[in-house]
């Protein structure tokens, strides 16, 4: 038996009035229950795609189905299935968080009594209840971001789209947001996340699509994407300055400063042999770390080359 995808985007195109081709035929499928990362550099087309899915942007051609419901033919029914946390703050700053949530539920046809109960539930879960009856403009940046999530949850959507929900949020609040979103996903809600914090995508998401210049350049599982990373770069902090760059087969060293080296090596090459070679040359390593997040390294390579084969090619 085949399952209806949570999201099925078919040849979606968007050309703006100024001639900018934001989407050049995007096709994408997200399975129910997935935690899906949609990544791309600024201006790649992510927000346009999300705008179309949430009916804030009119597509030029193509279609998208939310759990089998077309956003073009059955807009109202499709919107009932989606919750959106947009990138920009878009609530009335003069309203109170409780009213913002209750009104949002009202737009989805949820009666006021039930909406009040849901508002209390989600505002409490997101630690906003003590601010529920104060104007939203008095809240901190992190609180405003969490309010957007609480508001999106008011209709208890089957598909939750989060467009950079943790932008500008400190790490503590970011982690609490991850926890909340993971719990929502574990309870059965399909989640699509766009973010510039790639460690966030790597930690949370099972599947991933990378969009660049209006085209999907990669669409696979997180595991299989990360396995494409054949070269890793490590930063080595040395005990003492070393005069000359060491020569170790299979490892390319470069100098950052007197006591810091970068070592680029194939994943096939084991770390023990590199350390043995360094020890032999009298170079003691005090500590070591990855130069960049693994996904970040792949992402940069894919976007730089602009093709799905970039991972292999770069290796």
């Amino acid at each position, binding site marked *: 038996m085949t399952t209806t995808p949570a999201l099925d985007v078919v040849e979606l195109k968007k050309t703006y009035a100024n001639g900018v081709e934001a989407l050049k035929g995007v096709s994408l499928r997200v399975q129910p229950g997935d935690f899906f990362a949609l990544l791309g550099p600024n201006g790649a087309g992510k927000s346009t795609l999300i705008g179309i899915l949430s*009916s804030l942007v009119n597509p030029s051609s193509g279609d998208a189905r939310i759990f089998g419901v077309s956003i073009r033919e059955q807009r109202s029914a499709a919107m009932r299935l989606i919750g959106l946390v947009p990138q920009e703050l878009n609530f009335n700053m003069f309203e109170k968080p409780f009213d913002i949530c209750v009104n949002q539920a009202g737009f989805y*046809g949820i009666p006021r009594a039930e909406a009040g109960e849901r508002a209390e539930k989600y505002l409490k879960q997101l630690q906003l209840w003590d601010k529920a009856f104060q104007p939203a403009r008095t809240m901190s940046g992190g609180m405003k971001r969490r309010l957007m999530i609480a508001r999106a949850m008011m209709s208890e959507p089957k598909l939750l789209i989060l467009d950079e929900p943790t932008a500008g949020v400190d790490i503590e609040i970011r982690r609490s947001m991850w926890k909340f979103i993971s719990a929502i996903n574990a309870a059965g809600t399909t989640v699509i996340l766009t973010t510039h914090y790639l460690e966030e995508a790597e930690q949370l998401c099972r599947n991933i699509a990378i969009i660049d210049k209006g085209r999907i350049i990669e669409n696979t599982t997180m595991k299989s994407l990360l396995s494409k990373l054949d070269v890793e770069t490590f930063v080595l902090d040395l005990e003492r300055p070393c005069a000359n760059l060491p020569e170790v087969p299979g490892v390319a060293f470069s100098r950052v400063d007197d006591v810091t080296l970068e070592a680029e090596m194939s994943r096939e090459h084991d770390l023990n042999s590199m350390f043995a070679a360094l020890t032999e040359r009298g170079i003691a390593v005090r500590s070591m770390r990855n130069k960049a997040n693994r996904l970040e390294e792949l992402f940069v390579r894919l976007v730089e080359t602009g093709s799905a084969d970039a991972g292999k090619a770069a290796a």
Partner: protein
Amino acid sequence: MSANPNVVAFGTITRREVVRILRIWMQTLLPSAITMTLYFVIFGRMVGSRIGEIADGIQYIDYIVPGLIMMAVITNSYGNISSSFFGSKFGRYVEEMLASPMPSWVILAGYVTGAVLRGLIVALIVLAISLFFTRIHLYHPWITLSTVLLTAIVFSLAGFVNAVYAKKFDDIALVPTFVLTPLTYLGGVFYSVNQLGSPWREISHANPILYMVNAFRYGLLGISDIPMWTAYAVMLAFAVVLAAIALTLLRRGVGLRS
């Protein structure tokens, strides 16, 4: 029985609009009360006492009461929807509604109802103030009520269209200043168009506010420069055409969806 989602959504927008009107009552309700009190004092009592009767048995102050109430209804219904809907565009929270399952007509109906309610509240305030200066006889209650409702609907819809096209706050201030105010003053609020010579009398008939003011005056005083069927035809035609334009703009997302 579960509530109809569209009815709930409509109620939500209307409630939000009414809460806004009451929250900022010093901006929404008070100005008309002050302005109209000044009109009653200056034009009604001071100037009007020198004019005396303007029609058979009708004092000048009685004559201008319907026009002043309509003036308040027009400016308030127009101003409410244009500022509220443009504010939601400017603050981007219009997206809450555009991304929801609500059909366009529910959004329009909710905003128009909010604006009509402000028009009616202000009409009642101005009517109450007028009672300090004169006594009002209600000749035709249904004509009075239907005229004030139709007028508020027509100008709410016009204000909505203005807000859809507006890109900055100046854009919603231009029409009231340069179109609505002149048309209201030339719409027979302070005089009978029959007093005008040709061609000004004929030109005045191109002003839709003339029909609204006269229909309302007929409801309150039993006199009008315009036949009632003509007045209703004009008001209904404007309401239908503006509703069609507003709904089309909203469905297409003009100025709202890129």
